[in-house]
């Protein structure tokens, strides 16, 4: 129980710290501006106005969530170390794992609030322009949240042992690898079927693609914008299994981050 209480206190403080961060407000205002701009895009586009607005807004949510996760998330632990506030905090009867989990939950709450604000604006906008604000859009927003939950865990993992710039680069690397791993595997298999490579290269590339696909979190699973916008039904239990998938990766990343953080010396 004391551990849960400590996690809660650290999470609340992290939330308070993050909402005072100017970067956060810049990202949120930019996201709101882009969301509103999607109305103009819808008017200009040759495609269906409702489709453009919905897909643009969901992309804005995903991108702004990513920016918050990376730029605010990475600096959270690094700031504690550089400003030496971590010395006083960790001298209390708090495990380093509680510290990491508390920081994680604090930032997750920030992303949740951010997505909630954008979702409210999104629905309001759709209602005003009569562009069928269906409840199924919430599925896409929820999966963006699950994706950000993984990205924040990755950002915290890297920031527990690396510098701010490197952590940002590593996290972006994992993000792109996670989105492209499925396509990479498909492309390698396609090239193999078409006989474009010799047998040795095919085996080698396929193994590499399989490893990348297996190791990196498959973030492409959380992008269901096209399904939702076109009203295509998702498979049964899709949300449930992808929630389990996200929770599993978050657990693994936080466990590694906590283990690494526990080994650190604080000078």
């Amino acid at each position: 129980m004391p551990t849960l209480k400590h996690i809660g206190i650290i999470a609340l403080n992290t939330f308070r710290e993050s909402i005072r961060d100017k970067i956060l407000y810049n990202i949120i205002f930019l996201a709101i501006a882009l969301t509103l701009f999607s109305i103009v895009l819808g008017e200009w586009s040759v495609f269906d106005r409702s489709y453009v607005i919905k897909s643009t807004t969901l992309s804005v949510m995903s991108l702004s969530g990513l920016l918050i996760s990376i730029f605010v998330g990475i600096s959270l632990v690094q700031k504690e170390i550089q400003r030496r506030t971590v010395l006083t905090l960790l001298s209390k009867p708090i495990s380093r794992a509680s510290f990491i989990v508390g920081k994680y939950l604090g930032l997750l709450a920030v992303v949740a609030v951010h997505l909630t604000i954008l979702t409210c604006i999104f629905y309001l906008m759709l209602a005003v322009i009569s562009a069928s604000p269906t409840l199924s859009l919430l599925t896409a927003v929820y999966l963006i949240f699950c994706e950000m939950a993984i990205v924040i865990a990755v950002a915290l993992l890297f920031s527990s042992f690396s510098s701010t710039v490197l952590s940002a680069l590593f996290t972006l690397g994992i993000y792109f690898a996670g989105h492209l791993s499925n396509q990479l595997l498909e492309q390698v298999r396609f090239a193999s079927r078409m006989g474009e490579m010799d047998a040795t290269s095919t085996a080698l590339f396929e193994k590499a693609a399989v490893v990348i696909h297996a190791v990196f979190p498959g973030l492409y699973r959380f992008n269901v914008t096209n399904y939702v916008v076109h009203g295509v039904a998702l498979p049964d239990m899709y949300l449930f299994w992808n929630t389990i998938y996200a929770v599993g990766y978050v657990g693994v990343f936080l466990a590694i981050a906590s283990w690494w953080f526990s080994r650190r010396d604080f000078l």
Partner: protein
Amino acid sequence: MIQIEHLHKTYRSGFLMKPKQALKDVSFKVEPGQVYGFIGPNGAGKSTTIKVLTGLLNYDAGKVLVNGISPRDVKSRTFLGYSPEQPYFYDYLSGRELLQFYGKLVGLDGKELDSRIQWALELLHADKDWIDRRLRSYSKGMMQRVGIAQAILGKPKLLILDEPMSGLDPMGRRDVREAIQTLNRDGVTIFYSSHLLSDVESISHKVAMIVDGKIVREGTVDEITESCGVEYHVRTRQAILAADLPEGVTPAGHPQECVCSDDAARDRLLSFCLSHGIAIEKMDHKRPSLEDILTEEIARADS
């Protein structure tokens, strides 16, 4: 309260991970109820030792126990209060908000938390208007007081303070000294490092001196200074020729003044004066201060 035996710590830094031995076979013990001063020059290993005790640094070898538990175990910090050197805090909070945050982390809440914050602020003479201002506007002295206040909020059995008097004006130093003594009277064991040796001499029950990662002296202030001998400065009514001075007595730059290196030399000089009818005008005994001894130890380590 604190038990350290044969503690070793090596830092590795730079691209080639060049090792630097920060602590070399450090051993000492702090008994319950003591005010224990830890002194030494910059870079001697004081903060390293303190960070090992608070679990902020891992160590290579040796045995370390805090409240009977290894600092690697979170439980060792249950009854521990710590204020780092030049404490830094979340500057977007006010002093009171910060204390509320740390108070909750040590299990306080509601009215108990408020009364404990009030008690800590009064003890450190920090119950002023500035406590409700943002920490970014605080002076070094205000920050130091808040740092000590957060350390004592949980009523710890052991209080570890790293340079608690640095950055304080004379009034502030007096307040912190008094706070340390009050807490100690209430049964808190205090282990602290300091550069201000006069303060250490005045409030410490025991002192350890660390130079270049090694403990070079340990004991009460009297034990340490007495172990370095006592000099006697004697002024006579008549001049004594240097050649006539007994063994262990040397001239002091004035024909009527001389210095006895120890008790035996003093007795020989007194006998000499009695037998030659020389009157003693004045005799002072001079014990080396902690500063003298520390300076000597630093010079020895450098050589």
